[in-house]
């Protein structure tokens, strides 16, 4: 059963950046694009369990800080070695300045 969870305030994330969010023992990464759209993915890289929130956000891509594996954070698509498995994405919405993600 999916549910919308308040993850952060919209202003908590700089444009073209990522922050971590933890809920019920699961890690998520919340992104803000340069045009102020918000996205969410699993918090860990699919290659090894490295937190993506320490990585580099650039041109719609999140790069894992450990091995530079790259994902399109809007679709979760893995963009080449060493990441071969897409990262799960979650729907987001912004209501009254709060970013919600749909989990479950």
């Amino acid at each position, binding site marked *: 059963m999916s549910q919308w969870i308040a993850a952060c305030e919209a202003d908590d994330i700089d444009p073209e*950046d990522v922050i971590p969010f933890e809920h019920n023992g699961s890690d998520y990464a919340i992104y803000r694009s340069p045009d102020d759209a918000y996205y969410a993915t699993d918090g860990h890289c699919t*290659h*090894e*369990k490295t937190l993506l929130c*320490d*990585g*580099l956000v*650039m041109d719609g891509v999140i*790069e894992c*800080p*450990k*091995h*530079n594996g*790259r994902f399109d954070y809007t679709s979760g698509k893995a963009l080449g*070695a*060493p990441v*071969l498995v897409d990262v799960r994405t979650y729907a987001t919405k912004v209501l009254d300045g709060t970013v919600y993600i749909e989990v479950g």
Partner: protein
Amino acid sequence: MGGVGTGDVTTGRERLERYSLSGPENQAAVDAGMAGATWFRSAVPRKRMKELMQRSDYPAVRDTIIWLGLILLFGGLGTALWLAWHSWWAVPFFLAYGVLYGSTSDSRWHESGHGTAFKTRWIDEGLYQLASFMIMRDPTTWRWSHTRHHTDTLVVGRDPEIAVMRPARLAKLLVNYFGLVDVPTAFWLMFRHAAGRLTADEADYVPESERRRVYRTARVHLAIYAVTIGLAIGFGSWLPVVLIGGPSLYGRYMLQVYGFTQHAGMGENVLDHRLNTRTVKMCRLNRFLYWNMNYHVEHHMFPMVPYYRLPELHEEIKHDCAPVYPSLWAAYKEIIPAVLRQLRDQEYYVRRELLPGAAPFNEPTPLNDGRARPLPAVAAA
């Protein structure tokens, strides 16, 4: 700087067998929590780290144009002098060409392999393919090998890139200053890959879906070398081999000179790069040739930072590290005695003293103190 050892000695052969990725040490490292473990990282504010991670095409494009320009210049002058006059004045130009081709392609391979050198991906990938050919490495297997090296740096049985083992295979290390191990091994691997096979160690870290790429590249590389040798035979001249492939022999030595400073003689099975990696101050020329890989602690701790920002990263975290080695000479004054001592004491390693106020070493278990003592799973077997 001090060292730690016990004098306990296994036979050299027994100790060296532990480095195999297809042996029991691999699973033992996994069972002991050393594989894919959490490593120490100095605290750097996110805002500053974002600045340091930013990419720009300009520095790497500039440096690559200079690098390729020098290769073409020295190679062209050597070729012209030899073809026009058979002059031995060609030799110094070929020696310079050889080092640029056979040694400094290593650092270009390394940086573009991480994907941090350029902002534009296709330039980065292009340099990676070119440098992989020049350094005689398969771009796919070595990408995965280096990924493992970063995950499990100097973890015995896990890291495929431990250059100086305990005990060091001195004869191999010395002859390899002229590529006499790496080049025959590279050709052996090329033939093996071209036949559609990986080694057992490669099979441990190259995913199934990536292997077809390995086999295809090996066939392309072999075809280029076949044409080169064919031209040499056809023209009755060594020149094609001097220009293509040969630099991996006569120009290889600087790769070893730089490369051994990274980890030789330092701790194994640790989870803190300050215990197994060196940062060495180098002059501007060496830093250009080595693309700042002398800042190696910084690179391992934060591999997302491009080579041209590593000096700034060094300033950010140097308070948290051991004192930097002031020169290549200073590093080798430590490396040579340490490696020689490890011939008889394989638990010996160089243990640096951190600066006052630095975060303590990350040693979550007694097994992580750098001696690389036998792991429980192996000892019990």
